[in-house]
């Protein structure tokens, strides 16, 4: 029997849809954040003239600081949103829509 125990037991493992959904949600949230940072920090740190194809020193350190500051801002705003129960209070109209859709 030890022969079986040493194999990665694919058949014995279950795919939990809830965990998969959470992992996907987590991935999407990180990805959206990263895309927003890229967009914002490009606007703020890289001017629209291209004498060089390299990021120069100023642009590089601006970018580094921009990423760090974005994440700090993101954390503060996240805390705020949680404190005021942002999703319950300001996304209530979605509940209305969901109710209507459920009826149809």
């Amino acid at each position, binding site marked *: 029997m030890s022969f079986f125990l040493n194999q990665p037991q694919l058949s014995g493992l279950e795919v939990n849809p809830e*965990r*998969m959904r959470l992992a996907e949600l987590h991935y999407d949230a990180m*990805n959206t954040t990263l895309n927003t940072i*890229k967009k914002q920090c490009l606007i703020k740190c890289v001017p629209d003239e*291209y004498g060089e194809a390299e990021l120069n020193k100023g642009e590089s350190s601006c970018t580094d600081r921009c990423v760090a500051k974005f994440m700090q801002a993101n954390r503060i705003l996240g805390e705020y949103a949680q404190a005021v129960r942002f999703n319950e209070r300001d996304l209530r109209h979605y509940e209305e829509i969901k109710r209507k859709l459920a009826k149809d």
Partner: protein
Amino acid sequence: MDQLNYKEQQEFQKIVEQKQMNDFMRLYTSLVDRCFNDCVNDFTSNKLSSREETCLNKCAEKFLKHSERVGSRFQEQNQMLMNQMRGGN
């Protein structure tokens, strides 16, 4: 995401691959958007001038370098946050 078992990880890998394709397309679209906007502003001819071409090439290279730099800083920052959370609790 560490809590996923082996089979779930494999499933998730497939989902991620699809998402990466979308991300790549999005990155490419925003590159074209940005570089066309910054480099091509003269419409007295229907051909790109050599100046515009040089600008587009440099812009694209710079765009990707910026994107990579943001990516690695983002990762570092996240790692730091994770470590703080582990250490803090």
